[in-house]
């Protein structure tokens, strides 16, 4: 069975949308919840636990969405910038390394 992944939902505000369009990565967004744009950055269970430990306000919504929520906005901006830089959503390892430094 494939390992369960737990998304960090990066909701696309105007500033992020401009960056995505400039990078030609508009296809990376998906539309959910009646038109909201989001990029879901997957994390493993181990990565999720590390994130929750490093950022005490972050919350794993175990009951409903099984996603990692409530990361501070500037932290999400950092993750988002990594996504743009790498043109990939698989950036959690790199993000954690930069934070742990």
């Amino acid at each position, binding site marked *: 069975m494939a390992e369960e992944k737990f998304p960090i939902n990066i*909701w696309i505000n105007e500033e992020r949308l401009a960056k995505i369009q400039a990078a030609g990565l508009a296809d990376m967004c998906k539309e959910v*919840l009646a038109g*909201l744009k989001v990029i879901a950055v997957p994390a493993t269970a181990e990565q999720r636990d590390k994130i929750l430990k490093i950022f005490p306000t972050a919350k794993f*919504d*175990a009951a409903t969405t099984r996603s990692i929520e*409530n990361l501070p906005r500037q932290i999400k901006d950092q993750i988002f910038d990594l996504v743009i830089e790498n043109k990939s959503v698989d950036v959690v390892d790199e993000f954690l390394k930069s934070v742990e430094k």
Partner: protein
Amino acid sequence: MEMIGHGGKEIVERVMSKDAALKRVAEMQAAKVKTLDVRLQMATEIIDIAYGFFSPLEGFMTKADVEAVCNNMTLADGKTVWSIPIVFDISSEELEKSGIKQYDEVLLTYTGNPFAIFDITDIFTLDVKEVAMKVYGTTEDKHPGVKRTYQYKDKFLGGKITLLNPPKINEPFTKYWLTPKQMREKFKEKGWEMIINHQTRNVPHTGHEWLMKGAYLGAYGSMMVDKPRGGILVNAMIGEKRPGDYIDEAIILCQDAQGKYGYFREDIFLTTCTLWDMRYAGPKEAIFHACLRTNLGCTHHMFGRDHAGVGTYYDPYDAHRIFSKLPEGSLRIKPIFNLDWWFCPVCDEVTYSGLCGHKDKKASFSGTLIRSIIQDGVKPPRRIFRPEVFDMIMECAEKYGFGNAFVTEDYLKRRQPVFTIEPLQ
């Protein structure tokens, strides 16, 4: 008007009139009775006890009550269902320094002002690990209720409480804080025969809105529709906050906005608050909420998925199943159980999971998810989150949250308290 509360007992306010209180305080001070200044946690529960929110409790629990709560989910009488210990803690040092003994009458103060009389009938210790296991089903201090239990000081005082000095409820909560008696008077005024309670500690999204609407339609049943014979009571829990929670002011004003902006007719909708520090005890807290809302005069109580839970400590429907373990007739309120409400892109609406056949297309959303969207600076679509509620959040952030709609350390330090106890004059 009928003032019968949980356990079939009449709601009795243990509040002294101002003249009697002034006289009593003067006598107590002249007699140099022992005094204790209480912290916010205790002050909150003293208010709840005195006005009958916790009826039939008349004071803080004795050891016999706590043991019965832990072992049998009842009070010491063995009959009255009760699921959460209501205790007054004190350290051995404080106890020794104050000289408090069993059967003493103690003058409690809050922020230095006379507050209540505490008739001590029991002084005891507890095995907090055992209490945690029996109430919360875990001994992990990551669980906020367990953490609170472990933070209790090493001794406990049990006995009756009489309030001397009513709280001044500060803005914007003033009009939303109603005592159980006032609440029942309000229901009578509105002509409601059916009162459905919605428990919340959140700003509402449309999932909550539909949860309430579904419960209303379901419970209304075959009552005549010539006039509104029932209503929804949103009763927000206002208490201890954790960083990242919505600020209290946003919770109460955004809940109220649902009526103000017509998502519910104002004559079937009422927003109020109760002072309570959530314990996140899942199923046990669900039972406690049912007892509390019985005291408010509600006839029905909604329980959604993962009611009052935290993390993965409870199964999402534990808070439903626990009701089937109670003896018949032990509660005077009818639980309404709900599954999820989700957004279905095929139905193109927020819909009930018990009705929608597009499970593989569903988009679940929760308060946590919505909080995350707002934190990212995105305004959710109106089918998910009402624009007036969003605007109210932003207004509250500016007016009460020092620029933030979510609890920060700064907010905790600088916010105006929900209530104050002023000098007794």
